[in-house]
């Protein structure tokens, strides 16, 4: 075979393996994302083909829309709450299941991961039932200690209802990050801990001086991942549990986008909310990466 046809065959092969995927990805992912950015400069009800170019007006409107500010506040509340809650609990369990010499660690590990394979919809419905004012778990439990039936509408406060959405989000997230951290801790050479022991370091000291610096990279990845998945996806559980209510008090940017576009048919405005989500997500990534850059220790 001469090298010319060989080269042609190679190129044909590459093209036939690259192009269908790229075409598919282009049509169903890249094109919609770019379109989304483009739509945000239009006033568009979605009903007709009539889109009116309005420049940055959607963004100006957002600036004066109190719900947008509330939604951004709620988003970052959830980010902060989930980062703290998930990282504290997941780190504790990861250390407990690797460094404490406990039994049945494999069992706990498999069990703890279960919420991560269950649909967010199912988790939302289950927690809705826990909070249900008439027949819910929480009120029934509290009623054990009171004379009268407790009938608190947990998801009905005009303020602070967003707090109620934190427990399901943390509960559902622990297992994943625990597994991530367990893998990291297990890759630390045993000699590091032995050396620390010889110098008389207790569990707490070992955790601070060996574990944390050596799994810092994974801690960083976890925090970034929690932040990104929260800004990009936490609206599903919000939508299932409260639909952003009562009175928009639990709205996050994603749920507000959904409501504006698919309930109120302000598709241009919805798209511009999506634009802001992208910017917030990228900006926060950069910021967090700066903040957590130090302290990383290379394992040699």
């Amino acid at each position, binding site marked *: 075979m001469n090298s010319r046809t060989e080269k042609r065959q190679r190129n044909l*092969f*590459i093209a036939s393996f690259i192009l269908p995927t790229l075409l598919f990805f282009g049509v169903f992912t890249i094109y919609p*994302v770019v379109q989304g950015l483009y739509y945000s400069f239009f006033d568009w009800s979605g009903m007709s083909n009539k889109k009116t170019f309005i420049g940055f007006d959607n963004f100006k409107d957002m600036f004066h829309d109190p719900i947008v500010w509330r939604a951004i506040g709620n988003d970052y509340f959830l980010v902060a709450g989930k980062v703290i809650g998930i990282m504290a609990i997941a780190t504790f369990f990861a250390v407990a299941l690797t460094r404490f010499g*406990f039994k049945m660690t494999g069992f706990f590990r498999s069990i703890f991961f279960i919420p991560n394979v269950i649909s967010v919809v199912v988790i939302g419905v289950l927690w809705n039932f826990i909070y249900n004012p008439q027949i819910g778990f929480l009120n029934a439990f509290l009623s054990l200690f009171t004379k009268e039936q407790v009938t608190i509408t947990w998801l009905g406060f005009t303020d602070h209802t967003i707090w109620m959405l934190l427990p399901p989000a943390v509960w559902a997230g622990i297992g994943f990050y625990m597994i991530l951290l367990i893998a990291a801790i297990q890759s630390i050479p045993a000699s590091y801990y032995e050396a620390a022991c010889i110098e008389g370091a207790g569990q707490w000291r070992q955790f601070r001086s060996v574990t944390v610096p050596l799994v810092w990279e994974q801690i960083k990845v976890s925090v970034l991942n929690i932040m990104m998945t929260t800004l990009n996806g936490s609206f599903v559980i919000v939508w299932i549990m409260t639909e952003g209510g009562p009175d928009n008090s639990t709205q996050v940017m994603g749920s507000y986008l959904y409501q504006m576009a698919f309930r109120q048919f302000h598709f241009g405005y919805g798209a511009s909310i999506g634009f802001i989500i992208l910017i917030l997500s990228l900006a926060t990534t950069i910021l967090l990466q700066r903040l957590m850059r130090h302290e990383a220790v290379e394992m040699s």
Partner: protein
Amino acid sequence: MMKTGINNPILKTLFYALLIIWGISVLYPLLWTLLDALKDNGQFFLHSPWALPNLPLIWENFSYVWDKYNFGAYFVNSLIVTAGSTVLGLILAATTAYVLARYKFRGSGGLYLLYISSMMIPFVLALIPLFFLMNSMQLINTKIGLIMVYASSILAFGIFVLVGFFKSLPKELEEAAITDGASHYGTFFRVMLPLSQPGLITVAIVNILNIWNEYIVGTVLVNDPKQYTIPVEIGVMQAEMQYRTEWGPLFAGLFISIVPVLIIYIFFQRRIASGITAGAIK
């Protein structure tokens, strides 16, 4: 012998207790979903949700959601959509991943970066245009439409994991195949693809879970009740519970949706844990 672990008995008991409490908090809702699926409506208003269901158990709740709420049909829809998009996504991801892992050509680095960086883009951004795109292609309310979108949404993760997997396979195997006169295609289909089975299975399982559980894209692209997937129906069903109270059937529906993923998890838990976490380390 090095002393390891926790020696203080109080701390040890405390930490064990925490592990057990968390274990219960995870397992109990599953058990509770099953138990509540066997209750009739009256039992929900007795203010003791932890009570065991009264006898006789209302197994009819299951046949009721299966027939009256059409869970039977939705189960089939979910199966078709999940299987179709996983297979399609896997073929598209594996071919590109193989070429990116093994062939150098102009733009290969950029292409890889394009797929990987797309994992950083909030998918919600694409939701609105996707709706209109599918509408103009007449793919709203079709399983084909959902399959296309889901297949595309799993490409980045699939390519990321499979490029790593193909790179870890020894090069000698391909070289041997090529000296034996195998074509590029022959090498891929007869040598590399069978060898990459563990990687393919990991990617497939993770995708199956994600697509089976997916809610928001399904809700946006499907509004014809005949084409609902199970998560979409659960969302609709819980909204309806404000007007009619059929709690037993609702829990039966939840249970039906959980069982398949639990079975998959029990069989493939190592792969699932390593596969899902692989996507986070970019």
